[in-house]
């Protein structure tokens, strides 16, 4: 039953790629989300406008379409940029090679940054204003207020949303096999085609995702417990 026909190593490598891709995309979208939330809550009207346009457009367009759009266009733009730089000076030959992995991280980070922006915006607003004012009154710099007061409390409100987004990112990485990355889906497809046991190998890929989901559920529960330290829950 559990005979991987020598494709175990390939599927394992694909799984590692999937995990790396998801984690890196999470980091990128986390940072974009923090920036986006700050922009949407900024005093400047232009910044708020940019934030709103970004989240509205990204969340209105399917991720696969954005992925194809960014993956193919980014390559062309980078080529044009390097040609232009080459034409400026002849001594150095500029080149910006873009492999599917990097563009996958950029694309997924850019897309899910919009979802994180909304998550963080709500969480920032949930932190009582008086606490921030008190911190300012103590003479903390804005960065220190963010690090010591705003961020730790915001995380508590944001965690369920972060967990949700993480699950979505993890599953969205399967799309990256469509732009040529050899992730776990691609490896399973290749193994299935070679052995004529597609059903079995695709099921293996599905099982890998299920295990990853179960593990991340456990980690999330631990994190939620950590950030809920000192919070009293209403006893029902």
């Amino acid at each position, binding site marked *: 039953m559990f005979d991987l026909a020598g494709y175990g190593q390939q599927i394992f490598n694909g799984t590692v790629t999937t995990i790396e891709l998801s984690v890196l995309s999470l980091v990128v979208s986390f940072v974009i989300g923090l920036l986006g939330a700050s922009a949407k809550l900024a005093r400047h009207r232009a910044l708020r406008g940019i934030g709103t346009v970004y989240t509205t*457009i990204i969340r*209105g*367009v*399917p*991720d*696969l*379409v*954005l992925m*194809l*759009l960014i993956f*193919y*266009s980014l390559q*062309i733009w980078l080529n044009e940029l390097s040609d232009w730089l080459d034409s400026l000076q002849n001594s150095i030959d500029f080149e910006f090679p873009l492999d599917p992995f990097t563009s996958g991280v950029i694309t997924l980070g850019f897309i899910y940054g919009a979802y994180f922006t909304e998550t963080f915006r709500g969480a920032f607003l949930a932190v009582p204003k008086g606490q921030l004012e008190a911190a300012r009154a103590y003479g903390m710099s804005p960065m220190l207020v963010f690090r010591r007061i705003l961020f730790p409390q915001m995380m508590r409100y944001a965690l369920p949303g972060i967990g949700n987004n993480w699950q979505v990112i993890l*599953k*969205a*990485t*399967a*799309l990256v*096999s*469509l732009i040529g990355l050899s992730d776990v*889906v691609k490896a399973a*497809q290749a193994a*299935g085609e070679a052995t*004529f*046991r*597609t*059903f079995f190998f*695709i*099921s293996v*890929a*599905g099982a890998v*995702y*299920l295990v990853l*989901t*179960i593990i991340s559920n456990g980690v999330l529960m631990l994190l939620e417990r950590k950030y809920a330290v000192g919070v009293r829950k209403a006893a029902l």
Partner: protein
Amino acid sequence: MIDILQGYWQPLLYSDGYRMTGLAMTLWLLVLSCGIGFCLALPLAVLRNARSPLLWFPVWLYTFLFRGTPLYVQLLLIYTGIYGLSFIHNTPPFSEFFRQGLNCTILSFALNTGAYTTEIFAGAIKETAHGEVDAGLAMGMSRVTLYRRIIIPSALRRALPVYSNEVILMLHATTLAFTATVPDILKVTNDAYSATYDPFDCFGLAALIYLCVSFGLIFVFRRAERHFLAYLHP
């Protein structure tokens, strides 16, 4: 972008001459998969809240399996995997069904959205105010009447905002259909891309169309929410 529109507006909107394509196909996929998913989810959501583990466990397993794996993997499993099984291959009605990309696509989309919708509805049913149920029981309603008149209508109303989100995510998920050779919007723009090698205009056009459909759906659901949830507004 104008010349792509001129060359491809007809397949992009409704037909390439002998079959439904583009926007019409995308909407057809959306309506069919959400319709089947809805019909599947309603009874399953009731079972999901049942007391007996024999009833709720299979439903839980179904939603866990379909929500824990990517839709693309499910589509691959149904489209390429099942057809490869010799048992399916040699049984004429099955092989006929699973040979068509459209059938496999709709089956996998419906099962996927059915799992998410089951959880949405089950959550709403669980949170029915106990006073409503008590009142229904006090009126002497049977369990079936109670569900039909009180619990399900009220749960569906309260689930509407979350359900509208699921429908929009499903619209986005229909883009996967092109991997099973179903001629939806993305397939047509992908063909245009192969012909012109102009990714920004081709996929940008697809993005614009999907954006418009998303906004249209959001508008419709806002109207529906205002109608069905009017009693919640001051």
